[in-house]
């Protein structure tokens, strides 16, 4: 699984390619060239590059290519030793400190802090000064200054594990500390420390070259990249080619190390991709919007939308819906039914490589024809977005006012004086003017969600999209928040799993299951006379005032990876399923997609 993730990273392919090339140069190069790098030839001093000496010769007539390759080997070997020693020492010392805690941890922690507080090159200089020059002493010096960083990472990972939930559960189950350390803590710590250590490889290369340049490392006649640069100084003006070999190898090594460590970090800690507009569009591009009767007022029109993620998940399949001006349409269904994907498709926030079919139009503008800059301008102006967790939406380092003013800043404007606090107080936040200067964590979740609603409505967008806007908040706040949301926006696409909640605030409901619309209609009809068995199951699973026992639905939704299920996706969990349900997928007719409803 990890290998597949690594392969998907484009940077990771360039990084190791470059890295392998440098390693190959160091290992095979001297053998292939077959010239003694230390053999002087005083007849050809400072010869220019040519057929015999591809990179020319130095002051002693030694072949510069052979010296570069030998120097690469010397330098890479030193880097490898430094990396192995610093990582091992750091891992052992840091893990011990974090695991033992108490006085041991306090003492080691102080040493680590002190080491990190001093410039590493100064420490290395001091060590070489004490031990004397030479490549072994230089490597030792860099290890002495370099172990503290991986040690700090390891210590933090092990210390933090005391609060990790899987560790607490293991402890309560009676698992001993040694087995918790080996089973739960060390594997993750090892990965984290290795990745952190790779980020310092580039710096190690530079430090080694820099100190060798000063004459502290390998001594002549041994070839070393930094020392070669130092040697070339005196003849630099007449023979600039002396620089080519060492600088190219140093630069390539540093770039390769950085790319590999970036890709490793992404693979260990996968973040959702930020890119947007690199989707493969398929299906029916740029077809004119079908003009149905309500087309005049529709601010959002989705026609036959199909979304397939890069891993092959058919998250949304042939969904058609529209939201009229002033209308609130709720999309409901359990986790994984495609409702959030639908919202992200409208916001054009799907990950790179996602295949999108069908058509999407906002306020009459076909999104397939909009350029990325124009799309950025549309966000916030034409479409507003309210996220699930207001604390995650706000920057903890800035005031709440900063967050609410962001939509203006995004369009290089400033909100009119008093506008931010006026808009927030309009959503029933007391003492808004003073409270807005506080940081998000001083606000309650309900109040902060009001502030993010004010931010979403900054440019009075024609359409607002809210993805589970209340599920991160206390239940009793949900009604008030949705009332405020409904009041502050023009048309609303509300994504939720809670049917009763949306019942009080939406005009129409769309029930989704396994990426498809299974039932749609006016809210009151859906709640009072649900026709699709899945809608009935959703209602039965929703707690009602009075507290009747909940009825849960057996099983989980089908996997949407690969080919879609042959029959009705809900058939496996449906008590009324018949043969046709397993064989043929029902189509949405008269607001419901169910064979049993259609035939009865």
């Amino acid at each position, binding site marked *: 699984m990890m290998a597949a993730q690594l392969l998907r990273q484009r940077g990771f392919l360039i990084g190791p390619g470059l890295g392998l090339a440098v390693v190959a140069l160091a290992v095979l190069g001297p053998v292939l060239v077959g010239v003694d790098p230390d053999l002087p030839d005083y007849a050809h001093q400072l010869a220019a590059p040519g057929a015999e000496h591809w990179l020319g010769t130095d002051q002693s007539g030694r072949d510069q290519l052979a010296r570069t390759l030998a120097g690469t080997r010397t330098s890479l070997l030193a880097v490898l030793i430094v990396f192995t020693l610093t990582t091992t020492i750091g891992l052992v010392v840091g893990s011990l400190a974090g695991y033992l805690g108490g006085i041991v941890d306090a003492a080691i922690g102080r040493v680590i802090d002190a080491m990190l507080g001093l410039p590493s090159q100064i420490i290395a200089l001091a060590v070489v000064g004490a031990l004397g020059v030479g490549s072994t002493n230089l490597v030792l010096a860099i290890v002495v200054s370099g172990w503290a960083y991986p040690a700090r990472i390891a210590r933090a990972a092990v210390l933090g594990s005391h609060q990790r939930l899987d560790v607490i*559960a293991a402890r*309560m189950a009676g*698992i001993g500390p040694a087995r918790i350390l080996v089973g739960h803590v060390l594997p993750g710590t090892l990965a984290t420390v290795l990745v952190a250590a790779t980020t310092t490889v580039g710096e190690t290369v530079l430090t080694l070259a820099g100190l060798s340049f000063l004459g502290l490392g390998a001594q002549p006649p041994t070839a070393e990249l930094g020392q070669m640069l130092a040697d070339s100084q005196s003849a630099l003006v007449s023979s600039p080619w002396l620089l080519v070999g060492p600088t190219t190898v140093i630069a390539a090594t540093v770039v390769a190390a950085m790319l590999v460590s970036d890709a490793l970090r992404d693979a260990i800690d996968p973040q959702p991709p930020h890119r947007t507009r690199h989707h493969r569009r398929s299906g029916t591009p740029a077809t004119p919007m079908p003009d149905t009767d309500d087309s005049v007022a529709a601010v959002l029109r989705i026609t036959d939308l199909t979304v397939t993620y890069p891993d092959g998940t058919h998250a949304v399949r042939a969904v058609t819906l529209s939201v009229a001006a002033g209308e609130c349409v709720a999309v409901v269904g*359990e986790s994984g039914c495609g409702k959030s994907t639908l919202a992200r498709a409208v916001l054009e926030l799907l990950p790179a490589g996602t295949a999108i079919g069908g058509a999407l139009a906002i306020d009459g503008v076909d999104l397939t024809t909009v350029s990325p800059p124009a799309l950025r301008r549309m966000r916030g102006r034409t479409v507003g977005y309210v996220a699930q967790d207001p604390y995650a939406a706000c920057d903890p380092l800035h005031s709440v006012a900063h967050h609410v003013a962001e939509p203006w800043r995004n369009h290089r404007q400033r909100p009119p004086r008093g506008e931010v606090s006026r808009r927030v107080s309009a959503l029933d936040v007391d003492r808004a003017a003073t409270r807005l200067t506080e940081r998000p964590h001083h606000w309650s979740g309900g109040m902060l969600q009001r502030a993010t609603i004010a931010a979403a409505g900054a440019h009075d967008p024609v359409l607002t999209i809210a993805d589970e806007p209340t599920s991160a908040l206390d239940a009793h706040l949900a009604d008030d928040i949705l009332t405020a949301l409904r009041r502050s926006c023009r048309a609303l696409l509300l994504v939720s799993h809670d049917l009763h909640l949306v019942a009080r605030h939406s005009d129409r409901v769309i029930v989704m299951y396994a990426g498809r619309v299974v039932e749609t209609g006016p809210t009151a009809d859906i709640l009072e006379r649900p026709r699709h068995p899945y809608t009935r199951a959703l209602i039965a*699973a929703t707690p009602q005032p009075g*507290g009747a026992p909940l009825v849960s639905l057996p099983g989980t939704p089908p996997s949407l990876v690969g080919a879609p299920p042959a029959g009705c996706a809900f058939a496996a969990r449906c008590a009324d399923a018949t043969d046709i349900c397993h064989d043929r997928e029902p189509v949405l007719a008269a607001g419901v997609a169910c064979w049993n409803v259609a035939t009865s």
Partner: protein
Amino acid sequence: MSTPSPPPIVTADEVTRAYATARGTVTAVHEVSLTVTPRQILGISGPSGSGKSTLLRLLAGIERPDTGTIHFAGQPAWTGRSRTARYPRPGYVMPIFQAPSASLNPRWPIWRSITEPLTAPGRDRQHPAQLRATAADWLDRARLGHVDPTIRPGDLSGGQCQRIAILRALVAQPALVIADEPTARQDVITAAAISELLTHAAAHGTGLVVVSHDTAWLDTFAHHTHRMTP
């Protein structure tokens, strides 16, 4: 007492817990007394910051109260200056947390997480194949028979992870299960499945303490709900 009855699973007597914060001392739990008996489902509700989670951690022996006492099966949980609670046996109390994906080891196949309590010292040593079979059996009982026991939590939905975490708690055959907002951010179908699993455990003798701000959901299965105020 006139009739000899077994001691409650857990007894909290006037427990208080305060935290030092930048704005001064905050008393999260103030002199709370309660008991949990076998088969009992106790709900705890209240607004954010009312000390629900702290009370739960005190009842579970994860945190030590500043004053007051916690007893497990009649024995004091905290003695001397110990930094860890003393349980009558391993797995006596098992936790269910709010964040299902964080409560499972992401590097382990789920069968290993589910059966981890069975590998505690003092239990019979079992072969990994036996443990995998046990896990499959428990998955079946939780109506998750279609889930492959060898996959990792990253390939499961949050709702499925939460049910796996509940199975891990139940596999230990705990006297007490404490659940902290087990349905937060879960959809209604998953929430109903979770209350079904918990109700089933209680019917088999386990005591349950469930913290949730979703009182409507708690009322569908808790025998009594303790409301906390900030």
